[in-house]
């Protein structure tokens, strides 16, 4: 019997607005659990969850692990280095071997877009995508949206601008899918070399100049400039990037309204965002981290227990 989100959480693109709202609403009471002296409820007692991380991650992996432990699940972390993955085992073989040890859920991060769906169609366990290539990072998108909703209220008609390296960003894609489904207006701003060609097809506005975005937005979601992009020639230099696209206090002071500042982390202070903005009064960056645990608890809760037929899962994946 599949839960209200189906068997897996692969992205925000396959979810309906109601399903997204359900996760956000469910996350609210879960925030309170992390405030308790005993930060633990017995909900997932006896469930075993494998965190399968083929790419480096600190924040997301720790956040998932806290969420799992606060729901009383048993967790195992598998990183690609030091596992048989480094001996050339395929993704499916790794997962099937884990399943043979009777697990219930897999949280997967992988460098290839579509890896989570590929896995979800082939194993019975619930699969949660913790970031696949440049495709999606749904729990990050959900925690960003929850943070926006906490501060801005109903997001219908609210204006969110995603600033920076949209081209390589699964966070940007999950944000765009989720926010547009909830009726928000979404824009992107960054150098053309870091914006996908077909970005207009996702129903977003494009700003070439950050000054225009400052004029327009209620909130900025500032993306990390992946430093390895500079070597690849997408931008001339970090200093020039900061001069043209950096989110600085001087720029924000020209805004007609207070702009809420989000950043998925890790930050490059002085590159895409200045320290006095990151630590400033309108920054909700640490709130995002707190909400991250609550959102992941909500997702685990909503997915757990549902075990549909494999065929169902494959069908849903295509939607």
């Amino acid at each position, binding site marked *: 019997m599949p*839960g209200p989100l189906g068997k897996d959480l692969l992205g925000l693109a396959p979810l309906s607005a109601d399903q997204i709202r359900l996760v956000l609403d469910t996350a609210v009471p879960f925030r309170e659990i992390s405030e308790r*002296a005993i930060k633990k409820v017995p909900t997932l007692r006896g469930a075993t969850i494998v965190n399968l991380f083929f790419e480096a991650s600190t924040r997301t992996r720790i956040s998932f692990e806290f969420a799992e432990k606060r729901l009383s699940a048993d967790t195992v972390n598998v990183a690609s280095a030091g596992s048989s993955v480094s001996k050339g085992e395929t993704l499916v073989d790794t997962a099937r071997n884990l399943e043979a040890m009777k697990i219930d859920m897999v949280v997967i991060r992988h460098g290839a877009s579509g890896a989570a769906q590929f896995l979800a169609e082939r194993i019975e366990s619930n699969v949660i995508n913790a970031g696949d290539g440049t495709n999606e990072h749904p729990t990050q998108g959900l925690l960003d949206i929850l943070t926006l909703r906490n501060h801005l209220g109903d997001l219908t008609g609210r204006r969110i601008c995603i600033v920076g390296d949209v081209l390589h960003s699964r966070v940007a894609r999950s944000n765009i899918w989720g926010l547009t489904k909830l009726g928000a207006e979404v824009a992107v701003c960054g150098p053309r070399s870091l914006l996908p060609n077909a970005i207009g097809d996702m129903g977003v506005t494009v700003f070439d100049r950050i000054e225009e975005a400052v004029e327009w937005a209620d909130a900025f979601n500032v993306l990390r400039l992946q430093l390895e992009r500079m070597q690849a020639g997408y931008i001339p230099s970090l200093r020039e990037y900061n001069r043209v696209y950096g989110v600085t206090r001087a720029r924000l002071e020209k805004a007609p309204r207070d702009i809420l500042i989000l950043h998925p982390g890790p930050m490059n202070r002085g590159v895409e965002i200045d320290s006095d903005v990151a630590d400033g009064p309108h920054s909700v960056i640490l709130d995002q981290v707190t909400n991250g645990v609550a959102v992941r608890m909500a997702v685990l809760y909503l997915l757990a227990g549902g075990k549909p037929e494999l065929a169902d899962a494959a069908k849903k994946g295509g939607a």
Partner: protein
Amino acid sequence: MPRKPSVVLDARALDRTLRRMADQIVELNAGTDNLVLVGIQRRGVQLAERIVRIIKAQEGVDISSGALDITLYRDDLQTVGPRPVVGTTQLPWTLDDQHVVIVDDVLYTGRTVRAALDELADFGRPARIALAVLIDRGGRELPIHADVIGRKVDVHPGQRVDVFIEELDGRDEVLIAARDDEA
């Protein structure tokens, strides 16, 4: 045997019952020192708030009342179909050495109370926990009993007890109805 729902308590009877329950809670506790009321989501929360108001009017003392959502402590989470909606838990003070009275609308199998006891234990170590329910309909599946009972009714498993309260439903009334009769 589909029959018209029968009224167990109308608005005035419900008010009278809550007043008696408030008196009994204060008596049971030998006063209002260290007394804390914890309502179970949903209708228990509003009933607890009403009892607090009655005690305030009678004794001139402010009692704390909190809200407890027991969803995450249910013993049937692995088997129920759609995931139940999780409500708010609000217990902003320590429960250590307090006299806690759990307030709920209907006591039936006792499983909700079992979950509430487990959850309260994660918030501290009260000196004592008592249970006050508006309706005790029998049918216990666990060794649990109420200390303060508003009304005891015999209801067979094919029927259900519907509690309506002003704050959520726009009226005060307790009915017994046939189970499939989705009124």
